[in-house]
């Protein structure tokens, strides 16, 4: 029988705030974290808006040298991991350092550093490339630096599954504990890709919203006027522990991570298929893994990107899987407030699902004025809802056809 896994610490940086509490307060207040792009001159880009992290002071977490050398995705990971470790009241001692692992997912890694170093290469030649360029670019260095910082010597990995990366990471970390390979995992997702290459590249795919005149209303999942996702950046880190390990050290338990599902569409490199059966299968696997039934699911934090295809097909997948129970389900997209944090989204949205469970408050889908054709679920429009729930699911889907789903439930001893 698999070992039980619980969540004992949370840390986050999002466009809504530089902590879990600020981000959560923003989300349940229905605030938007979207604004004009300030990270680079975007005057020649069609999209000029994003969900940026604001007023982040990395010196609270690292020294000046590290700020200069690390890409933002590493700095965000170190900051959120420290917040999660403090929240979990956890210090890794030699007794269990080899049983403590790290898996942090990222869609890109240091794409801003790729851009700046290529600029240096072309302008000044290979001798001017920084010796710190490669370790700032490669995606597994979020996990690497977190492991170094906290002395986690167990299993280490990195999920690079595009917009599902954070969820893949948490799912794999959960399995690592459940299977017995670790007792503690520091896990989640991160992205810091509000950079010319990413905004230009997603723009070329016509994937981004161009509602530049009303940034706070641009991310509008399930609405009939949705026109693409709003790129965001962020990091969400959770501490997972094997249940008896957490109990023995008297840890505060937020929730149990009861199930994980992962499937592939085997269909198209970027688009989901009509009906999105791969998403439905992924949700079904997570529910089965948790030894629950579809009727037991109370809330889904949807992938809900605000793209025309995703929101319709995700809705179809939910209706197909949940059948008559669909009417009782609450489904919301917090991307309406944070934008789409790509690899960070799975980490941050897992945290929102856990907070919804813990506090009995469902964060809303803001900007949902008129549901789009075929979008007819209870999306918790505009205003958060107070409702006690027992289970919360987090869906994320990524380019390459990845569908990754986590299922959290209230911890009952």
């Amino acid at each position, binding site marked *: 029988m698999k070992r039980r896994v619980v969540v004992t610490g949370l840390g986050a940086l999002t466009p809504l705030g530089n902590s879990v509490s600020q981000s959560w307060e923003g989300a349940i207040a229905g605030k938007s974290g979207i604004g004009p792009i300030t990270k680079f001159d975007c005057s020649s880009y069609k999209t000029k808006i994003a969900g940026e992290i604001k007023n982040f002071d990395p010196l609270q977490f690292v*020294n*000046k*040298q590290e700020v200069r050398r690390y890409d933002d995705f590493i700095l965000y990971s170190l900051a959120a991991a420290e917040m999660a470790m403090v929240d979990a009241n956890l210090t890794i001692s030699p007794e269990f350092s080899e049983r403590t692992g790290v898996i942090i997912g990222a869609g890109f890694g240091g794409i801003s550093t790729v851009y700046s170093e290529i600029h240096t290469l072309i302008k000044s030649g290979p*001798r*001017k490339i*920084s*010796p*710190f360029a490669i370790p700032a670019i490669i995606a597994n260095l979020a996990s690497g630096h977190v492991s170094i910082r906290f002395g986690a010597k167990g299993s280490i990995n990195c999920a690079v599954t595009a917009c599902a990366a954070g969820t893949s990471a948490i799912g794999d970390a959960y399995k690592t504990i459940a299977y017995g390979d670790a007792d503690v995992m520091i896990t989640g997702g991160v992205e810091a890709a509000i950079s010319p290459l990413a905004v230009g590249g997603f723009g070329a795919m016509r994937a981004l919203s161009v509602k530049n005149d009303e940034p706070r209303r641009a991310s509008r999942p399930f609405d009939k006027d949705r026109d693409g996702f709003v790129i965001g950046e962020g990091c969400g880190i959770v501490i997972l522990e094997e249940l008896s390990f957490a109990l023995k050290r008297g840890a505060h338990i937020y929730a149990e991570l009861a199930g994980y599902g992962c499937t592939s569409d085997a269909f198209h490199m970027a688009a989901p298929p009509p009906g999105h059966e791969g998403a439905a299968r992924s949700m079904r696997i997570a529910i089965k893994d948790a030894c629950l039934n579809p009727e037991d699911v109370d809330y889904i934090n949807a992938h809900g990107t605000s793209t025309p295809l995703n929101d319709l097909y995700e809705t179809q997948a939910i209706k197909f899987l949940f059948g008559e129970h669909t009417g009782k389900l609450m489904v919301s997209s917090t991307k309406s407030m944070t934008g789409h944090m790509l690899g960070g989204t799975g980490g941050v949205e897992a945290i929102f699902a856990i907070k919804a469970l813990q506090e009995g408050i469902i964060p809303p889908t803001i900007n949902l004025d008129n549901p789009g054709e075929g979008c007819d679920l209870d999306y918790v429009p505009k205003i958060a809802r107070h409702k006690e729930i027992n289970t919360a699911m987090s869906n994320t889907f990524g380019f390459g056809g990845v569908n990754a789903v986590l299922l959290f439930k209230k911890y009952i001893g």
Partner: protein
Amino acid sequence: MTLEEKVIKLVMEQLDVTMEQCVLEASFIDDLGADSLDIVELLMEMEEAFGVEIADEELEKISTIKDVIDFLKQKGIN
């Protein structure tokens, strides 16, 4: 600012060390906590600041602050 002061200022910034640590004989690796990547970056900054080029075989000979200053003097920088 003298050459020595300029070099020490750069070392302090790059390696995040104090003025007191930056005695002329200080070894980058043994005394100032640098690793091989730190040294490469530091010498790239020196190249930039003083408009010189440090070849790889010269780089290997540089291990202390004094080595850097001597090298720069050799190149005619004061």
